[in-house]
């Protein structure tokens, strides 16, 4: 009953305690009902709930709760990302290494296509671990350059020696071009030459149909290397240190000497020349120089007196 009517009714009938108190109770109940209705969500909200129920059987409230849970999860992930960049770095390093290993396989397969270049695995461990010079961890890019510089330097040194490969080429590098090691000590064997090596490899590979794709890879990699001269230089320094280390440990001249010592005839000869002294580093170059000097000393005439020498010169002039 509306409020106005109620008061009218009460006014008309004057105060009747029993009736009016009952009316008052009824009025209160009505008021409570009205407030309840006001508080209750309207029909549209009910409808929305029904619609939401149709969508995957969830109410809006449930959806909201789920959304907030997802938001919390995402926030947690973002926080972890911000708080844990080290883990991200670790993952990137791990996969950088894997990528470099894939490239190394490509290079190994590629150089097999070219008959002259027999091996390209000397700098293989450049893929792994830290840079031995700087102690820094390697990025994926640096690892790629290490592989390429390793391949490039071998190509540079071995291609001109057609028909010879591996150890023979290294011996030629140390003995045949003796000055090279000295230069390497100053400038490095690969320094500034790896890109050229890769370009040379590309040209060689392009000659055969099999090597066409490999040639493309080399060309693209050489372009990539040119874009990053600083990092390539770093890799070249690393490669040079590795080559020097290798040659010191596996000095072919020293190896040859060990073999010669085992031969009784040559061994005794070597003893006479004093070359067997292990404490003194053996150099085939010095040995050859010494032998050549002694040979020419023996062939040359004994020294003449100044007067005799003058006569000899005049005689030769007349002749």
């Amino acid at each position: 009953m509306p409020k106005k009517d109620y008061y009218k009714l009460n006014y008309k009938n004057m105060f009747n305690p029993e009736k009016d108190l009952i009316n008052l109770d009824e009025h209160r109940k009505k008021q409570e009902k009205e407030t309840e209705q006001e508080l209750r969500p309207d029909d549209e909200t009910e409808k929305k709930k029904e619609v939401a129920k149709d969508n995957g059987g969830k109410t809006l409230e449930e959806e909201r709760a789920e959304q907030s849970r997802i938001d919390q999860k995402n926030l947690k992930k973002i926080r972890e990302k911000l708080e844990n960049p080290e883990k991200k770095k670790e993952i990137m390093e791990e996969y950088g290494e894997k990528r470099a290993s894939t490239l190394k396989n490509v290079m190994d397969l590629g150089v097999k296509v070219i008959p002259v270049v027999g091996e390209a695995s000397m700098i293989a461990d450049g893929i792994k671990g830290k840079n031995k010079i700087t102690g820094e961890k390697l990025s994926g890019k640096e690892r790629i350059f290490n592989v390429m510089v390793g391949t490039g330097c071998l190509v540079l040194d071995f291609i001109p020696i057609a028909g010879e490969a591996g150890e023979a080429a290294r011996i030629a590098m140390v003995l045949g071009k003796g000055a090279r090691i000295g230069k390497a000590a100053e400038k490095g064997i690969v320094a500034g030459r790896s890109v050229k090596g890769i370009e040379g490899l590309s040209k060689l590979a392009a000659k055969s149909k099999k090597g066409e794709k490999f040639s493309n890879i080399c060309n693209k990699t050489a372009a990539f290397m040119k874009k990053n001269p600083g990092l390539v230089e770093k890799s070249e320094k690393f490669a040079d240190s590795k080559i020097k280390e290798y040659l010191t440990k596996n000095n072919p001249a020293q190896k040859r000497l060990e073999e010669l010592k085992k031969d009784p005839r040559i061994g005794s000869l070597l003893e006479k020349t004093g070359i067997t002294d292990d404490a003194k580093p053996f150099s085939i170059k010095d040995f050859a120089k010494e032998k050549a000097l002694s040979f020419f000393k023996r062939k040359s005439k004994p020294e003449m007196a100044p007067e005799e020498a003058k006569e000899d010169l005049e005689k030769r002039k007349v002749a």
Partner: protein
Amino acid sequence: MEKEEFQKIAEKLIELGEDADEMQYWINIYDDLPQQQKDEASKTFKEELQKLESL
């Protein structure tokens, strides 16, 4: 894996912080790689993406 798919993964990796230069290099040489190495590279890229996304 097709090159386009490979490229998409590489782009996602760049978004997650991988070196853009290196990723572009891999996209460039992808077609020239031997099949076995193609598969290897695709697998590596996918795995890395999964790991980085799960962080």
